[in-house]
């Protein structure tokens, strides 16, 4: 187990290396002078020189790369070209809303999607099954910002149950925090519910035909116990996997949701950075989210061994 863990962590290093290389080359391989691209059309020579100096663009490429990597490994993600604030600090200030939305979405989606998927598999071929699967295709197809605005119109403008936009930190009390978290979380959950419900159903269908399910039924267990205690446990691995691979979806979803609901999280930070061509921030966000994605999927691989004692590495 420990050996496996070590191998997996080592295998993540080249992946992150490629991510870093892609991020690094993205700016340097774009046709034209990188400093001019970042500074925009009305830049003065002084501004250009400042950008060149701050990104080390006057050095040879390989020197730039290794200097940059060295800084990264020491936790230095650079300084914003716009506000001159260290990127680490900017991200730190904006991370709470994004994490709140992401965690709330995962919890809500799993609570809704897993029972839906189980029921759809149990009632395979009936209208319930078709209804759940129809909902799931719909969840995949309607963009999160369209869902977001429909929900705002319905629940914040028409009936005024919830605030339209914004975010309140949990430090200021749970009520206002929760109130403003509901609509973004529900909007973002649609696609995740679709993904997880689909996978739960497919995985349950594989398992429901197994001998141990028949045995469980034969010894007189109730359907609930058969489905959730015997079948779902065995169907869990693919479901957990899809939660991990769907994590990338969640990250893009957070970016869009924060724009719809005007939430000052890291998604909004990224979009603002892109619009202002604040490359150090963009770079840092791509690196961090990729690292997070790799880490989440690594954790999930490890979780397999806890969920399924048959899996040994």
């Amino acid at each position, binding site marked *: 187990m420990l050996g496996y863990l070590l191998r997996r962590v080592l295998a993540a290093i080249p992946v992150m290396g490629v991510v870093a*290389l892609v991020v690094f080359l993205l700016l340097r391989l774009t046709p034209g002078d990188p400093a001019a691209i970042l500074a925009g059309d009305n830049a003065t020579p002084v501004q250009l020189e400042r950008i060149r100096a701050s990104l080390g663009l006057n050095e040879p490429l390989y020197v730039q790369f290794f200097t940059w990597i060295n800084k990264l490994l020491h936790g230095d993600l650079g300084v914003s070209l716009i506000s001159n604030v260290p990127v680490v600090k900017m991200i730190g200030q904006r991370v709470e809303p994004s994490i709140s939305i992401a965690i709330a979405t995962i919890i809500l989606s799993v609570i809704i999607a897993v029972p839906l998927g189980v029921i759809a598999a149990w009632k395979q071929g009936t209208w319930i099954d078709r209804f759940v699967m129809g909902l799931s295709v719909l969840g995949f197809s309607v963009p999160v910002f369209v869902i977001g605005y429909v929900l705002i119109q319905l629940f914040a403008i028409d009936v005024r149950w919830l605030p339209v936009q914004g975010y309140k930190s949990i430090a200021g009390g749970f009520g206002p925090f929760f109130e403003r978290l509901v609509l973004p979380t529900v909007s973002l959950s649609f696609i995740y519910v679709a993904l997880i419900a689909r996978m739960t159903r497919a995985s349950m269908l594989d398992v429901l035909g197994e001998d141990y399910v028949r045995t469980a039924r034969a010894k007189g267990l109730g359907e609930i116990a058969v489905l959730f205690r015997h079948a779902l446990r065995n169907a869990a691995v693919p479901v957990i996997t899809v939660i991990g691979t769907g994590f990338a979806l969640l990250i893009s979803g957070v970016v869009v949701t924060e724009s719809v609901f005007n939430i000052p999280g890291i998604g909004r930070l990224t979009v603002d950075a892109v619009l202002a061509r604040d490359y150090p921030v963009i770079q840092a966000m791509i690196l961090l989210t990729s690292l997070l994605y790799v880490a989440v999927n690594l954790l999930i691989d490890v979780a397999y061994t806890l969920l399924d004692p048959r899996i040994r590495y």
Partner: protein
Amino acid sequence: MAIETLPEPSIPIASPLRPRFGFFTSSPIIAVASLCLLIIVVLSILAPWIAPHDPMQLLPALRLKPSSEQFPLGTDAYGRDVLSRILYGGRISLLIGFGATVVSVAVGLLIGLFSGFFRWVDAILMRIMDGVMAIPAILLAIAVVSLSGASVFTVMIAITIPEIPRVARLVRSVVLSAREEPYVEAAISVGSGLPKIMWRHLLPNTIAPLIVQGTNFCASAILTEAILSFLGAGISPETPTWGNIMAEGRAFFQVKPSLIFWPGLLLSIAILSVNLIGDAARDALDPRMKQREGGK
């Protein structure tokens, strides 16, 4: 000879050429989805002839007007006709969706074929693909667009890049299993050239999974384009695309929500139709999946 008397195979042989026209009428849902998509495509193509107004024409005196005979869906914040903008918007959204699909399948296919066939390039190519796959697609796309400037071409490339590794991995896995088949070994042993082996024996195996992957990606490419425009990181805002119309509508959402709902509805229908067709294509091309997924 007895060849004519051989019974029909009881299991239909999955052939990519089999579902031709009949596929689109095979179930009511697919028929409706295909029809919706067809209507949207036709409306977009015919936009210059059927749009009542010039989608770029500014009429500041007629800002945010409600529906009227002259402007069936009203006007936007600059006095432009919303219906005309939506009709024209479909062109860009669909063009980028289909274009990105074709390019990503073509490039991914090439990488996948080589990677599956040559062990020495495989290790390097797949590590690169792993790295690109770890970057969230939207972030990579907005970074590419913001650096290279927004045009239809750069947006298409930006949407294509994150998808290439997924296609390449799919093709590679098909090639890896196909190259162990006796007919490929036989072709190698009789001295068939590499291009011939790839073209005649490996490529046909990849068609069915690529159709499925391609359709699903097409839906997500249309969506990604809309997201990029919506975030302000897509094609320049005066160009009508569904995402741009919605992005401009954000500021006036409480005054005129239809600026977001109409393009949002068309966008959703287009994506839904493509997704439904993709799911049906998967069921039709892979009978095992149909059994597993239980026919929707």
